[in-house]
């Protein structure tokens, strides 16, 4: 059997405004509310609302045979309530219908695991509480921000025993020539590791509308055949797990409606169901369907799903990012020490990995992706404004 596991990454950060040197000590409003609202509302119209409706139709039509999962961040939920509450209603409807698994992660989509492990666990707990409050769900699957994973992540996550499965990038850096379709066990035997199939995921997320791609145009029929073909090499009847993990904004935002992305998703289940060896699953279904003993996998260094390096370089490859993140977590510690709880929420919003991603100075193809997602002209500007904000925050902590 091949299990198709769709996971949608649903996230919006609180972007910073152009906070000048002279605002330090005078302005506690760090965020570009107008920009954040504009981006959220645009994405709602183009992606969240129509795509949720499409998925809801599938859920109702296939009565439990169609399954999807979401990783929704806390900052996304906050912005939905602020800017477009209908989006929350529609996610809640999907949750009520029982068609979706909701996955645990850090509330703020942060890289706290690298600088502050205590904060990391706190943010994961905050996120679980949010899922329970909003959707009535306690997550059993964990995925770290940007699929950052190493042995240490599994060790840390054992503190929250509900988590049985961790999602990570199926990169050759850790799998070597082995297929990402077979799950593994973490080095400590605590978790099942489920791998994102980056080639098929990116066929949808990045290459779908690329006319220079030899496979263009990608049809649901063609994709379903590719999925079916995956089983050809499996001779011992082991179940295969195909994790298709993409940004939710792929549908309607990165790939515009005009590219036919919605039509593709509309037709895909029908083509997949034509093959009786293919069915949909949630990540946590792995626990019940697993019919072999997974091999252990040790990941001593962090991997992620970003850029061609699949490492931390999108957020931590240059000194600007490093100084910003290091300084941020030092200041966050001070917020806690001085028990400035009124500053906590604002402070934590600054942990979102996006803010450091905007400071990335990389060129070639990846640089283009960074630029597409960044609200700033230059990575230097992202750094300058971020550091002004940190300076203000630091000042406020020291005030009595």
């Amino acid at each position: 059997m091949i299990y198709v596991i769709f996971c949608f990454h649903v996230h919006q950060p609180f972007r910073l405004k152009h906070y000048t040197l002279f605002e330090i000590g005078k302005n506690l409003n760090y965020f570009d509310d107008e920009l954040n609202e504009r981006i959220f509302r645009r994405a709602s119209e183009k992606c969240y609302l129509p795509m949720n409706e499409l998925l809801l139709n599938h859920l109702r039509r296939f009565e439990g045979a169609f399954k999807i999962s979401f990783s929704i961040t806390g900052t996304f939920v906050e912005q939905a309530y602020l800017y477009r509450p209908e989006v929350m209603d529609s996610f809640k409807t999907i949750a009520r219908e029982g068609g979706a698994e909701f996955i645990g992660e850090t509330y703020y989509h942060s890289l706290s695991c690298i600088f502050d492990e205590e904060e990391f666990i706190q943010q994961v707990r905050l996120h679980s509480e949010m899922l329970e409050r909003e959707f009535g769900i306690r997550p059993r699957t964990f995925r770290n921000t940007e699929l950052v994973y190493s042995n240490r992540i599994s060790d840390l996550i054992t503190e929250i025993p509900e988590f049985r499965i961790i999602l990570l990038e199926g990169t050759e850096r850790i799998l070597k020539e082995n297929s990402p379709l077979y799950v593994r066990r973490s080095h400590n035997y605590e978790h099942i590791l489920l791998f994102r199939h980056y080639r098929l995921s990116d066929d949808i997320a990045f290459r779908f509308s690329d006319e220079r791609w030899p496979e263009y145009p990608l049809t649901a029929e063609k994709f379903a055949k590719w999925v079916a073909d995956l089983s050809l090499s499996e001779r011992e009847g082991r179940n295969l797990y195909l994790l298709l993990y993409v940004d939710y904004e792929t549908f309607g935002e990165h790939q515009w409606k005009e590219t036919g992305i919605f039509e593709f998703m509309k037709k895909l289940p029908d083509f997949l169901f034509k093959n009786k060896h293919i069915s949909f699953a949630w990540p946590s279904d792995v626990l019940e369907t697993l019919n072999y003993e997974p091999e252990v996998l040790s990941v001593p260094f962090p991997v992620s799903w970003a850029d061609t390096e699949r490492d931390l370089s999108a957020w931590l490859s240059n000194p600007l990012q490093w100084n910003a993140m290091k300084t941020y977590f030092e200041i966050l510690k001070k917020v806690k020490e001085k028990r400035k709880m009124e500053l906590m929420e604002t402070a934590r919003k600054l942990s979102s990995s996006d803010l450091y991603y905007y400071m990335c100075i990389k060129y070639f193809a990846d640089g283009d992706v960074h630029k597409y997602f960044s609200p700033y002209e230059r990575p230097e500007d992202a750094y300058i404004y971020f550091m002004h904000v940190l300076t203000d925050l630091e000042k406020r902590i020291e005030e009595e």
Partner: protein
Amino acid sequence: MKVLMLTWEFPPKITGGLGLACYGIVKALLKKGIEIDLLLPVKEEVYFPLRKEEDADLLPIASPGGEMVHEGIKRKVIKWLEEVPSAYKNRRLELKERIGSERISIDKMLNDLLQILHDGMLFDDVREWTIDAIEIAKHLEFDIIHAHDWLAYPAGMIIKRLSQKPLVTHVHATEFDRAGGPGERRIHDIEYMGLQLADRIVCVSHHTAREITEKYLVDPSKIRVVHNAFLIERIKEKRRLFKEPTVVFVGRITLQKGPDYFIEIARKVLEKTKNVRFVMAGRGDMERMVMERVASWGLGTKFLFSGFLSREEVAKLFSTADIFVMPSVSEPFGIAALEAMSMGAIAIVAKNSGVAEITKYPYKVDFWDIDKMAEIIIDLINNPEKMEELSKKSMEEASSLKWENQVEKLISVYSELISR
């Protein structure tokens, strides 16, 4: 007396000291009853007849925030000048022949100049302006031509030949200063020609005077030194941004201004005390390099960059500053130091800067002497009373250096030439 004045920068269109200095000069000359027709690189074919002091503030150039005119050019550093003087001597002779004698027709000279001015955003702009300025000048009456820096020399030279009026060229900086050594060959050529053809050369410092004598073989008897002053619009209140003493760098982040020395100083000071903040303001081709280096030292929020600042914001930054550091590798004058002092900041300036020649209170240090500058800053931080006293004295000194006194020297240059 009426002066035809040519400058590339004037408020509100300003990128650096040149515009500030021209503004001060123009205002003070007007006050002394000198009439000025001002030619600026504007899109329209216009000139600005300035008759009263207030006229200097009424220029209708809409350029809020100021444009970074110089940022657009990527200068090729040409090696041919490195073996000065022998390699350059022949070249200079060749150039001298091209401009030196009355036998060369004005058309030929203009042609030669325009040929130099091509290929490159800034060069094309200068070319266009040169042609416009010459056309306008044909319709104007004046007693003397005053051209500021190389951008205005081509127009100045041709207008001198056409009008038969004396030409004063004003050296605020040379290409040697900007490039930190030999720079763009075409700019060197224009500077050389402009200085050779000028009847008088005004330098902003003795240092600059020596430099053009040595490097462009200018006849020293043509040179007059007139130091800059600073025009204080209004004394502003000191306002703090940080409770710690604040040390600032303001200027283009380029080799000439020594930003790399400034960050090293900051690092040294921060090894000794955390009771300090550093702010670096400006843009330039070394910005990313400098920023990355500072960040790699993990100085946290102790060292901040401001991003681009408008004129008003620069003034605001000075008013929050306790110490201004100007470790320029080359600084013909350094008017920013006077501006900073007028706002009560203590200046630490490069020994070889023009401003060091006429001031008493700034610390004067070799631009490369990081240890010394760090030591001075630490000493000031540890002695708040000393800092307060020096701040007051700096403010007084800056306001005592008035353009009114300096332009007297300019006027005598003019008179000397007119009566000749």
